[in-house]
């Protein structure tokens, strides 16, 4: 046991090990984001449907808390490891270039940390808004649909959600692409497919999530 522990420690102390943590936690969070979106899209099916779904989730009790704990762990590990790597990466080039012309990196790849931090703050805000109901009262724990519609009818709130989802798309565009690399699961002949998958995931999640605030905001605009 001791030997395998040192083995694991020595592996996770390398940047390659840390990137593996990033990709596994990232994959967990990605799964959550997909499920979360699919569930929430029920908003288009009407008040009853969405509220029933919410009630079902609440009824899970212990399972829900176990799931929440797993998510929290994944988020914290993702953030902590990400920041550790970011500080190490910053330190590896103490003097910056006067000119930098990228060849293959993208806006998303170069801003993963900022996008990630922004998403982190958004998650806190989102929980305060629609889980705990602390930021934009009134809030009715039993009527998720009304909470959502009330929130997204206000331009600033809807705008914040849209912006956050664009960030999410950008974060995933690079995240999904690089996840396979960190897991060691790539080959030249799948390169284009991998790019395609990353694009698809990013666009689908962004579009799906944005559709809700946008649709609600437009339908509730004073005519």
């Amino acid at each position, binding site marked *: 046991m001791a030997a395998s522990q040192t083995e*694991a420690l020595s592996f996770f102390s390398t940047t390659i090990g840390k990137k593996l943590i990033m990709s596994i936690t990232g994959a967990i969070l990605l799964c959550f984001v997909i499920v979360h979106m699919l569930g929430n899209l029920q908003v288009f099916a009407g008040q009853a449907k969405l509220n029933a779904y919410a009630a079902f989730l609440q009824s899970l009790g212990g399972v829900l808390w176990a799931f929440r704990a797993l998510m929290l762990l994944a988020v914290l590990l993702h953030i902590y490891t990400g920041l550790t790597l970011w500080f190490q990466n910053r330190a590896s080039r103490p003097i910056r270039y006067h000119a930098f012309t990228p060849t293959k990196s993208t806006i998303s790849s170069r801003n993963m940390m900022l996008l990630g931090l922004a998403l982190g703050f958004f998650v806190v805000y989102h929980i305060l808004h629609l889980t705990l109901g602390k930021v934009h009262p009134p809030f009715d724990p039993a009527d998720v649909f009304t909470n959502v519609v009330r929130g997204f009818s206000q331009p600033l709130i809807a705008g914040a959600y849209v912006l956050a989802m664009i960030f999410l798309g950008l974060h995933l565009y690079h995240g999904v692409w690089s996840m396979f690399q960190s897991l060691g699961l790539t080959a030249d002949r799948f390169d284009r497919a991998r790019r395609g998958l990353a694009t698809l995931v990013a666009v689908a999640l962004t579009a799906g999530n944005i559709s809700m605030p946008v649709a609600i905001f437009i339908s509730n605009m004073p005519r």
Partner: protein
Amino acid sequence: MNFTLRVWRQKDASDPGRMVDHRADGIIPDMSFLEMLDVVNQKLIEKGEEPIAFDHDCREGICGCCGAVVNGTAHGPLPATTLCQLYMRHFRDGDVITIEPWRAKAFPVLRDLCVDRGALDRIMYAGGYITVRTGSAAEANAIPIPKPIADRAMDAAACIGCGACVAACPNASPMLFLSAKVSQYALLPQGQPERELRVKKMVAVAEASGFGACSVHAECEGVCPKNIKLTFISKLNRELIRAHLKS
């Protein structure tokens, strides 16, 4: 052709260094980038100033000695090209050209554009070899190697160790260099006995040298003069995971 060069000048490791403008006049499109620097240096020497120090040797793109970040791109704007094989016909007359040394904590500047890439050698000393005593080898054709595997090993082995991958990487990560060597030996049957130990030892030294992590920006692939593919880094990751799982 005439150019304005904005060049990093630094007398030695203790000098903070600065960007200095130099004129490059009367340049012929058929000159290589380094020959253009030769012309500038000859003028500087005539004027009694110290010429721009830059590393170079074979000037045919194979020794891996030369390299500078030109207008923000390692080895200049042309893909799959070393600086010595970059010709001035790829620039526009009158351009301002920014020339900076490789920048990384692990590559201290020695003078002007010359940096110390010893960290890459130290990674190699740690395990970049197959241990085989001179004279103890088996007959060369004793182990047949399928052509696709031999070709893939050759793709990796083409690395010239110039350090452009480190220079271009926003994190100054050496993973493309490291992965090329690890992959070459991991692919070949001769490399199997030391496969796990090798990748662990090489990664350990790389990690201790002040480099950054791979964030899969792919800048390394974009500037690599020998077209080494990013997927070798994936292979490196796989090799390290495998090595730790096995032991």
